[in-house]
């Protein structure tokens, strides 16, 4: 009974989404307040029914309702309750439901927090979000119903894919989707602005905090995914330029570009058309990401088996959303130009250059990811694009962006002081070289690899620039307004980039990875650490059994720690490697069991990975930066915003800190 109720709830949600989409949009078009007023209650009702459906599916999982096919396929009696809950989004149907749930939650957040938006605009934004939801609800109801019955019900279910039975995996998809779907808000704002026919309203300021928060979530989602790959895939890698990873990275790049473009448009009124276009791109890439992961058109190391019919549906949906919004853009956007003029050397130009670098990177990743499909379509054979393609181009494109990073805050809007910028760049470079020289002198291991040099110099260069700007603000700005939230967020995120650069390049350069054959009692030495394999014992978990290895780690001969990597076999037969990691600020010790060989010997992966945590730390700082910036008081809607909409463009609005830098 209850699962059918879930299905009914989804159908009702679809009806309410249709109401939420159609009536307010018509109302905004015909200027009928009564119709526009429907937006808010419809959005809330829609969210309630989606939540109800989600809760009923979760309940089916928690109560072992194997008469629901999806539950029977993805859980069983011995699966612990927290993984049964996470199993709700462990496979296709449920993860689509999660997508819609998060979309409806974002919509409700918007409906509640943005009631001070002008009514026409508010109605259009909610209407556009309703349209997006219709597509996904139809998709679930027509192709991916999570409530389908399996009669007679089996006595026990299959199991959740063992690679997903990990704490990292339980919260990776929701957080990632928070990011993906969050870009729908920026998208809806942009479309609402286009529908309104004029982009010179302060819509960008209203969109900015939402974009920042969405980007922050996306960053965290990618970090969690990378961490999961590192710990759970059992071979110590953290990024593979795999289609599934690229799918989340493309919207991230577009989102980073969007954040910077929104800053230009909001502060100066320049380039509104570009900002609108990026809003469309960021969300389109999120949809494309969902499509790539869910349709299975690409072979991936994270391959999820899937159904091509669903791919066709998403492809049509993608075509309608992207094609429709670009058409609207083509019809409406060219009418808009403006903003204040800016000199060739100005903060606008620097931000624009960074924008181009980020979007080019996104395009490059897109090309590399889709190239196997293109090659297939043109009959060039079965092609894959190797990771060096992405690595090389990404470093080439991001190096100039890193070089410009410390200069941005120092550059004035409109016209920047070239000599000041050169001085900042030289100062940062000198600091970087000094620190690099000292470290080189202190380290006796000889010439470090070029990657380490590049990473160290790049990181110190960025950090020195950020620090110099923080110092300048401390000296020059009055107390209490030295670091407004928006600026603080920017500084934190830029520090994050510096730490990230250091982490990536240092860990790539200094990681030592030994794949070895060890019999019990044998020792493998890496640097100061000796790893002695003591053999394996048999252990049992809730729904698995495992061979658990014992590895004594000695540092300079003294006992340091003991690691217990596992080779699990889940009850339904699938194997899974559980690495054992000794985490550290400066380095990780990483041990994973490979495969059993003869006479009790095992193949082991024994890795020392210096600075690997810095990479995720940098990502987390970027996320915090995004969240902090979103709390800026300037973004909060005031009553005067509504009155001002008809008169002033955002660039004309005097804001206390407009020329702060």
């Amino acid at each position, binding site marked *: 009974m209850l699962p059918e109720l879930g299905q009914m709830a989804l159908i009702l949600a679809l009806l309410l989404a249709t109401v939420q989409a159609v009536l307010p949009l018509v109302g905004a078009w015909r200027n009928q307040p009564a119709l526009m007023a429907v937006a808010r209650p419809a959005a809330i009702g829609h969210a309630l029914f989606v939540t109800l459906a989600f809760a009923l599916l979760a309940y089916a999982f928690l109560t072992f309702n194997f008469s629901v096919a999806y539950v029977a396929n993805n859980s069983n009696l011995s699966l612990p309750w927290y993984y049964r809950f996470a199993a709700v989004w462990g496979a296709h149907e449920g993860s689509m439901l999660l997508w819609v749930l998060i979309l409806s939650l974002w919509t409700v957040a918007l409906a509640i927090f943005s009631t001070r938006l002008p009514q026409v605009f508010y109605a259009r934004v909610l209407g556009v979000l309703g349209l997006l939801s219709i597509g996904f609800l139809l998709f679930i109801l027509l192709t991916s119903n999570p409530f389908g019955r399996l009669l007679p019900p089996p006595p026990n279910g299959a199991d959740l*894919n063992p*690679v997903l039975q990990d704490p990292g995996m339980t919260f990776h998809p929701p957080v990632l989707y928070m990011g993906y779907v969050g870009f729908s808000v920026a998208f809806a704002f942009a479309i609402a602005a286009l529908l309104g026919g004029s982009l010179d309203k302060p819509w960008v300021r209203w969109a900015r905090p939402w974009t920042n928060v969405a980007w922050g979530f996306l960053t965290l989602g990618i970090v969690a995914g990378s961490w999961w790959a590192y710990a759970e895939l*059992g*071979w110590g890698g953290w990024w593979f330029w795999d289609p599934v990873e690229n799918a989340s990275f493309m919207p991230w790049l577009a989102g980073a570009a969007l954040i910077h473009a929104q800053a230009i448009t909001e502060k100066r009124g320049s380039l509104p058309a570009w900002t609108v276009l990026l809003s469309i791109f960021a969300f389109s890439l999120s949809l494309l990401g969902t499509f790539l992961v869910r349709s*299975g058109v690409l*072979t991936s*190391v*994270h*391959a*999820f*088996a899937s159904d091509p019919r669903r791919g066709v549906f998403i492809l049509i949906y993608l075509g309608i959303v992207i094609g429709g919004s670009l058409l609207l853009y083509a019809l409406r956007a060219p009418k808009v130009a403006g903003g204040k003029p800016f000199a*060739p050397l100005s903060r606008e130009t620097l931000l624009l250059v960074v924008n*181009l670098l980020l979007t*080019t990177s996104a395009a*490059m990743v897109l*090309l*590399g990811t889709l*190239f196997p499909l293109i*090659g297939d379509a043109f009959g060039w*054979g*079965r*092609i*894959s*694009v*190797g*990771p*060096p*393609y992405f690595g*090389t*181009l990404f470093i*080439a494109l991001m190096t100039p962006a890193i070089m410009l990073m410390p200069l941005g805050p120092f550059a004035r809007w409109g016209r920047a002081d070239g000599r000041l910028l050169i001085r900042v760049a030289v100062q940062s470079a000198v600091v970087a070289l000094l620190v690099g020289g000292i470290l080189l002198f202190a380290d006796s291991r000889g010439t470090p690899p070029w990657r380490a040099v590049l990473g160290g110099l790049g990181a110190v260069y960025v950090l020195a620039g950020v620090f110099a700007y923080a110092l300048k603000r401390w000296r020059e700005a009055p107390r209490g307004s030295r670091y407004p939230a928006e600026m603080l967020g920017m500084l934190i995120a830029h520090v994050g980039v510096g730490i990230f650069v250091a982490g990536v390049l240092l860990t790539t350069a200094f990681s030592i990875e030994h*794949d*070895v*054959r060890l019999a019990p009692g044998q020792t493998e030495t890496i640097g100061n650490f000796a790893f002695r394999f003591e053999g394996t014992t048999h252990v049992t978990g809730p729904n698995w059994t495992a061979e658990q290895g014992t590895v004594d780690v000695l540092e300079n001969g003294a006992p340091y720690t003991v690691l217990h990597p596992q080779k699990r076999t889940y009850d339904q037969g*699938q*194997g*899974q*490697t559980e690495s054992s990691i000794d985490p550290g600020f400066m380095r990780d010790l990483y041990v994973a069991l*490979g*495969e059993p*060989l*003869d006479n009790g010997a095992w*193949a082991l*992966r024994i890795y020392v990975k210096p600075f690997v945590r810095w990479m995720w730390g940098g990502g987390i700082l970027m996320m915090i930066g995004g969240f902090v910036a979103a709390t800026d008081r300037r973004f909060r809607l005031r009553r005067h915003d509504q009155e001002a909409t008809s008169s002033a463009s955002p660039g004309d609005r005097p804001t206390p800190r407009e020329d702060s830098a």
Partner: protein
Amino acid sequence: MNPKRKRRLIITLLAVAAAAVAVTLTVFALQQNMNYLYSPTEIDAGKAPAHRTFRLGGVVKEHSVVRDGNSLMVHFVVTDRFHDMPVVYRGILPDLFREGQSVIVTGHMQGTEFVGTQVLAKHDETYMPKEVADAIRKAKEAERAQAAKQAHPLPQGR
């Protein structure tokens, strides 16, 4: 040409130049890193490059996995059920690597042996990568065509 137009021209030219550099770099990087996938049958027919990295797709032949006694060297045979390709690989095989399961090996030819640098097996055991399925299907078709030819040496004469 007035100064404003001149500046626009310069900006346009710079943008075109930047785009040209980007496109050149991208095409170059793509060419360097494109890996084709071949089945043992295609390699047997001489389609695979002799000195370049490519990917070998197929099924790990039953009872073909032989481990070296005191290193991580392993020999196995990848088959599409029509032709076999011996593979040598040094390292740890993925969790889902199993005889009778599909696999994609990246590497290059050395004599008659394929030297693998990376072995991929799929997370989902019931799932055969589309590429491998295609390769096996193609091999089957080629074999059938061959058989048809042998059965009817002059098909056009009928």
